[in-house]
């Protein structure tokens, strides 16, 4: 009886007792969820256009953040003891964007092109290979110590209706919103965006109406690289640029299966659900089991959703024919 009470009744009473705290938790969760969405977006873009499950997305974010820090502090690649004058954040961000586009070219040229038409699992493994290479390369180039990233996003907190709100989180949500909006415009309103959607729908049909698959892949991987850069900036300024940054990919995976591998809105909504669910569970149910349930709760939550909708909330219905 006590156990049942502790699991099913007491947490809800706590919530009702101090609604302000509950909403604070929910909002905090939503903010984290937005950050998850940023990472999940990169996965979705690539999966939609090339059916590649890009495990390297987290490492992309890490690499982008490292490059950005390196440029801003004026570190000379491969020669860590020398220093150049650093450059302003804006220039550094643009330059890092260029680096990410270059990386996309390289990946398409070296990895994707020779592997056209391979099994999904083979492509997946090769992106793990990319992750290894990039991780080693990034550490070699910029050093593996923990770095601080500060591009001038204001921090601090204020109280709104008794709820403590972090200014940084608001900025993160705002930036994510702008990013999603511009992606939506890019996909819906531009010629390239239309071509991207065509490729996502059907590779062969897209090819047969004259859409160049190769350049589309480069574009998609570049866009994913830029998204990784944004994610890297946000996570990097929040918790420092270090190896563990690449592990956010693992945190974004439940978001991905919850929202569906092929849906951009799914990545956003999934991120919010996971973020909120995780925080609420950690705060209200975590103490029952000594805490730290954040590592797996998201997966279980996503699994429960999956049992009812195997393709995720917004994924395309999987139609199978014999």
């Amino acid at each position, binding site marked *: 009886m006590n156990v049942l009470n502790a699991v099913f009744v007491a947490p809800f009473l706590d919530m009702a007792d101090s609604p302000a705290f509950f909403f604070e938790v929910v909002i905090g969760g939503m903010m984290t969820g937005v950050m998850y969405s940023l990472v999940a977006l990169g996965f979705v873009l690539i999966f939609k256009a090339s059916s590649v499950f890009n495990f390297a997305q987290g490492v992309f974010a890490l690499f982008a953040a490292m490059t950005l820090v390196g440029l801003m502090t004026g570190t000379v690649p491969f020669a860590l003891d020398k220093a150049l004058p650093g450059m302003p954040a804006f220039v550094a961000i643009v330059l890092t964007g260029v680096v990410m586009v270059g990386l996309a070219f390289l990946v398409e040229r070296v990895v994707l092109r020779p592997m056209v038409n*391979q099994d999904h699992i083979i492509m997946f493994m090769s992106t*793990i290979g990319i992750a290894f*290479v990039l991780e080693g390369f990034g550490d070699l180039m910029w050093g593996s110590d923990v770095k601080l990233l500060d591009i001038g996003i204001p921090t601090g907190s204020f109280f709104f209706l008794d709820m403590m709100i972090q200014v940084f989180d608001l900025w993160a949500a705002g930036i994510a919103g702008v990013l999603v909006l511009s992606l939506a415009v890019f996909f819906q309103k531009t010629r390239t965006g239309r071509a991207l959607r065509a490729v996502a729908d059907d590779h062969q049909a897209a090819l047969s109406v004259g859409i160049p698959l190769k350049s589309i892949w480069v574009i998609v991987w570049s866009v994913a690289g830029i998204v990784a850069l944004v994610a890297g900036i946000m996570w990097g300024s929040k918790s420092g640029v270090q190896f563990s940054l690449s592990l956010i990919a693992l945190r974004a995976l439940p978001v991905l299966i919850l929202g569906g591998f092929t849906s951009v809105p799914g990545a956003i909504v999934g991120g919010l659900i996971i973020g909120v669910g995780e925080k609420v569970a950690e705060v209200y149910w975590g103490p029952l089991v000594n805490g730290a349930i954040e590592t797996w709760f998201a*997966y279980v939550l*996503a699994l429960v959703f999956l049992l009812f909708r195997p393709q995720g909330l917004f994924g395309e219905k999987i139609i199978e024919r014999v």
Partner: protein
Amino acid sequence: MIYRETGQFKPTYQSDSAVFPIAQDRWVVIAFVAFLAVVVPFFGSEYLFQAILVPVLIYSIAAIGLNLLTGYCGQLSLGTGGFMAVGAVACYKFSTAFPEMNLVVVLLLSGVVTAGVGLIFGVPSLRIKGFYLAVATLAAQFFLNWLFNKIAWFQNYTPSGTLTMPPREVFGVLITGAAAQPHHRYLFCLAMVVILALAATNIVRGPVGRAWMAIRDMDIAAELIGFRPFQTKLLAFSVSSFYVGIAGALALALWLGSVETAEAFDINQSFQVLFMVIIGGLGSMLGSFIGAAFIVLMPIVLTNVMVYGLGFEAVTAKHFEFIFFGGLIIFFLIVEPHGIARLWQIAKEKLRLWPFPH
């Protein structure tokens, strides 16, 4: 010329359906196993046993397990590390709770426990497929590691939270614990590997294996011609977990001696074993061994070459090791996506026709 099956008649059904129908294959395998069992223990050093041979053998078992699931039944799993942790914890609990129990029995029981856990985590596979399933199996990985870390009962309430294998004997020979001779551990491992590999080979070429392969190739079609997908997939999950669990138990008992489960069996283990299966060859027994040897040996070779051969600093060498490891994996996937076992297959075909290829 050397490798030709002309003149090898199969007068009985038994000889026709033998594991190695070609005499040359049979003799090479027997000779190789005999070499490993009889010759190697006499000249092997402790380093050779503890750092190379025993890990390769243990990972071979894990790779066979994952290969049964992914290569033969087509269910992608990223929970291998978690299942190895189950095996290790079960082995620890059984051997400390029942000191009289024979180590072989302990290992088998660990496998059975892991099979049960695998069965539970295999249930979603009926509804979820492909990468969705792969991500779902990650839930097993994270949940199990969290569980073993949080609940002190699994560690017998030791304050450090590490599992330390007590010394145990098999037939009067000390096998586990710090005092055990490396070559004894190695021989025990080898025996386990031979038995388990033979069993796996016979499973996959029988009706069970055919059902798995039918499910792998197209599950709906398999269902239509009468295979039951739920039972078949669950069987694959549990048999696979049995192997992986024994590998985890062996890793604790014979290789590492004392482990912290969350550290030793983390997500990287899952990826490592998956690499072994894919680099070696999906759906190939030989591939599991080649893959295990390749993935265990490559970092050792890379480190030795770079630190001792080229004089790099250890940290720099570590970074280069990452780059080379990733690069080699991409290279192998591009050159031969069906794994190294496939190269061996092609070489054998060539050898059959040699020296007159037309």
